[in-house]
């Protein structure tokens, strides 16, 4: 009999996936974060390169964190030291204050409140606003003289609006806009930010929300409507930094101060165009920008166009080192989460099998975790676990539990009841029944649960990119922002291949643990 071998196999599986994780935290290191859109990444990269050029500090980049809440929590809890933020976002989303006031009032309010509440410092504004605006393709105006949002109100009831999820929900977005202008659309379609332009150009939607520095405004023939009733609050870009970081490295204040008023909206639109449409990386554009501002110490500016329009294979080949690293990160995250999932869920299933009365409620409770949206789960965890690998693994671990617990419990409970009865009647102890009868007979069912969890985990690991834990989600998220299918596929295809490989491997294990005679 190979019962011992099966245990060894499970243990080996667990240790195979427990790959070493990167070390955390050291002194003299500045962690720069950004949100998951291009301009935020570019500004963060500009901060990072400027600090690298003018100090001896090591800079760690945590770019592409999912949204304001994740970024801000990361900053507040010290998981990052610095990230680019907008005064309007600070006022409305973080301070939850009404979207009013001009640019100076907004800056002064957030500056004072952030210092008082969290010792977070707004640095000198960078000189441009990236505010919300409404835009309409010129072809949809039918020649009508459409210049302001007030003009739009008259024809809006026959138009379809396509807006980002955040815009639809923010008080300084659609709800407030509707109230201020009395604006109503025929239909409102929630859309991913990067897809709206294409949808508008294709005539799927008529009106969209845009950011005023969006690079695509340079190429798409859209009318950006004037906010004639000054509804949208000012969104001045600025660095937001921890007071404790400034206290430790006071020079950072003056070095980052070099960027005060360095940009205007037109410049930013062009830089964003290079990122969004030209497919250049934030590193390259940031270096060119700093070089043009003569802020780098040497003159090492080198522009390397990225050949990613040459097709998927060529692009993947040019990025092979990065993709390999992303793949290893992806496997480590998924493997670690799945391994921990097995370590907890299988014993829990065994325990529940001995306590039938609580089993169903407990399993149903664990099942509920599957319904928590991943971004929400990550946002809950940042105050406790910060950002990076740890919260990503914990989130993935939580998602992996349900299929394993469910299958372990059901597999044990339903394993050959007649054989279990006979074993008990002939004098096996409950432990022997578990070890010799239930577990071997339930092993294929348990492994099927592990297999399901494995595929789910590998798929879900793409979300790790939202909290700076890397993995193949990074190119997927980046590609989505750039609306660049090549970049998306460079992450999505390896991720799908990994899922298939894991499924195949665990399928083999499942066959292997199936006892003979069954």
């Amino acid at each position: 009999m190979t019962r011992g071998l099966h245990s060894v196999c499970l243990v080996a599986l667990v240790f195979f996936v427990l790959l070493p994780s990167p070390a955390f935290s050291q002194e003299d290191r500045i962690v720069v974060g950004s949100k998951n859109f291009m301009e935020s990444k570019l500004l963060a990269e500009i901060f990072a390169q400027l600090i690298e050029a003018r100090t001896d500090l090591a800079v760690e980049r945590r770019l592409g964190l999912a949204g304001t809440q994740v970024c801000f929590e990361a900053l507040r809890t010290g998981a990052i030291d610095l990230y680019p933020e907008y005064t309007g976002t600070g006022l409305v989303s973080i301070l939850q204050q009404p979207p009013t006031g001009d640019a100076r009032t907004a800056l002064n309010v957030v500056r004072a409140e952030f210092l008082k509440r969290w010792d977070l410092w707004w640095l000198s504004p960078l000189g441009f606003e990236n505010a919300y605006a409404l835009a309409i393709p010129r072809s949809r105006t039918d020649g009508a003289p459409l210049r302001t949002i007030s003009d739009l109100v008259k024809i809006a009831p026959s138009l379809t609006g396509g807006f980002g999820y955040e815009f639809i929900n923010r008080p300084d977005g659609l709800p407030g806009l509707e109230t201020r202008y009395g604006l109503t659309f025929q239909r409102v379609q929630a859309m991913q930010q990067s897809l709206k332009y294409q949808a508008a150009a294709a005539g799927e939607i008529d009106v969209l929300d845009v950011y005023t520095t969006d690079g695509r405004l340079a190429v798409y023939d859209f009318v950006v409507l004037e906010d004639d009733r000054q509804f949208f609050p000012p969104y001045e870009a600025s660095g937001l930094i921890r007071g404790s970081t400034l206290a430790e490295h006071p020079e950072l204040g003056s070095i980052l101060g070099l960027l005060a008023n360095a940009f205007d909206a037109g410049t930013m639109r062009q830089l964003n165009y290079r990122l969004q449409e030209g497919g250049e990386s934030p590193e390259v554009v940031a270096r060119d920008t700093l070089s043009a501002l003569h802020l780098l110490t040497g003159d090492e500016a080198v522009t390397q166009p990225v050949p990613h329009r040459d097709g998927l294979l060529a692009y993947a080949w040019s990025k092979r080192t990065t993709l390999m690293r992303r793949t290893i990160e992806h496997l480590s995250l998924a493997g670690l989460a799945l391994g921990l999932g097995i370590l907890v869920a299988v014993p829990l299933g065994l325990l529940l099998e001995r306590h039938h009365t609580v089993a169903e409620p407990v399993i149903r409770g664990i099942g509920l975790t599957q319904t928590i949206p991943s971004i929400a789960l990550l946002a809950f965890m940042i105050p406790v676990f910060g950002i990076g690998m740890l919260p990503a693994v914990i989130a993935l671990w939580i998602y992996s539990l349900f299929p394993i617990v469910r299958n372990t419990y059901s597999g044990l409970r339903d394993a050959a009841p007649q054989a279990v009865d006979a074993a008990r009647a002939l004098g096996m102890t409950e432990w022997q029944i578990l070890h010799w009868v239930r577990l071997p007979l339930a092993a294929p069912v348990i492994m099927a649960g592990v297999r399901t969890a494995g595929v789910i985990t590998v798929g879900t690991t793409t979300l790790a990119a939202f909290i700076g834990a890397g993995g193949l989600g990074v190119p997927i998220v980046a590609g989505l922002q750039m609306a660049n299918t090549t970049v998306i596929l460079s992450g999505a295809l390896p991720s799908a291949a990994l899922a298939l490989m894991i499924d195949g491997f665990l399928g083999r294990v499942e066959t292997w643990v199936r006892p003979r005679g069954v």
Partner: protein
Amino acid sequence: MNPSALSIRDVSKEFSPGVRVLTHVDLEVVQGETLILIGESGSGKTTLLRMFNGLTHPSSGEVCIHGEPIQVKDPIDLRRHVGYVQQDAGLLPHWTVEENVGLVALLLGWEPERRTSRVHELLDLVQLDPQQFRARYPIELSGGQRQRVAFARALAADPAIVLLDEPFGALDAITRHELQRQFLGLKQRLKKTMVMVTHDVDEALRLGDRIAVLKDGHLLQTGTATDLLNAPAHDYIVQLLRHRSHGDHS
């Protein structure tokens, strides 16, 4: 009269309040006899059988084995020394015939050599060629072969008492008849105390030294086949005996 092997005194059983499956049952099984518990589904016969090896406990009353109350015994040790055969054999599907038959010996910590020779002896006893069958899995056996393996497994540690829960119930008529014939042969040779549950009157009359008739949790009558035929204590027994096939009573 032989001494008592098993006795049941004033036993009642309720699985939950109001759901009574046995009512004030008294029963004596003497050493070396084969006692048949007969009744229809829900009569309480299997519940009664499972009290003899502590798989079920009475709500009130006393169960004794060799004169000792069963509660004072270690249930695990007790079960290792009482044979048990169930309707669908209950073989461990992932264990070979040899491993299944050697199960109790394994639990009792016998040396492997002793186990193997005992397994071969038992397979011979139930007329299965050890060389041909020992390495097979239950799925590779016919229903009758599985039942013989289960019987061999029950006898492994040479228990004085063997409990059988409808051991031939799931077999076709021809196989059942053949196994009953073998069972009678073994019964003569082994002189074990056996308690067998069945709902088949012919089987009861053919195999039992004495027969206990149960209905709705009440024990109606206990006696030999002749007692039951000549002096049925209850209308139900008259009806029950009417169901037997003719000329099959040996």
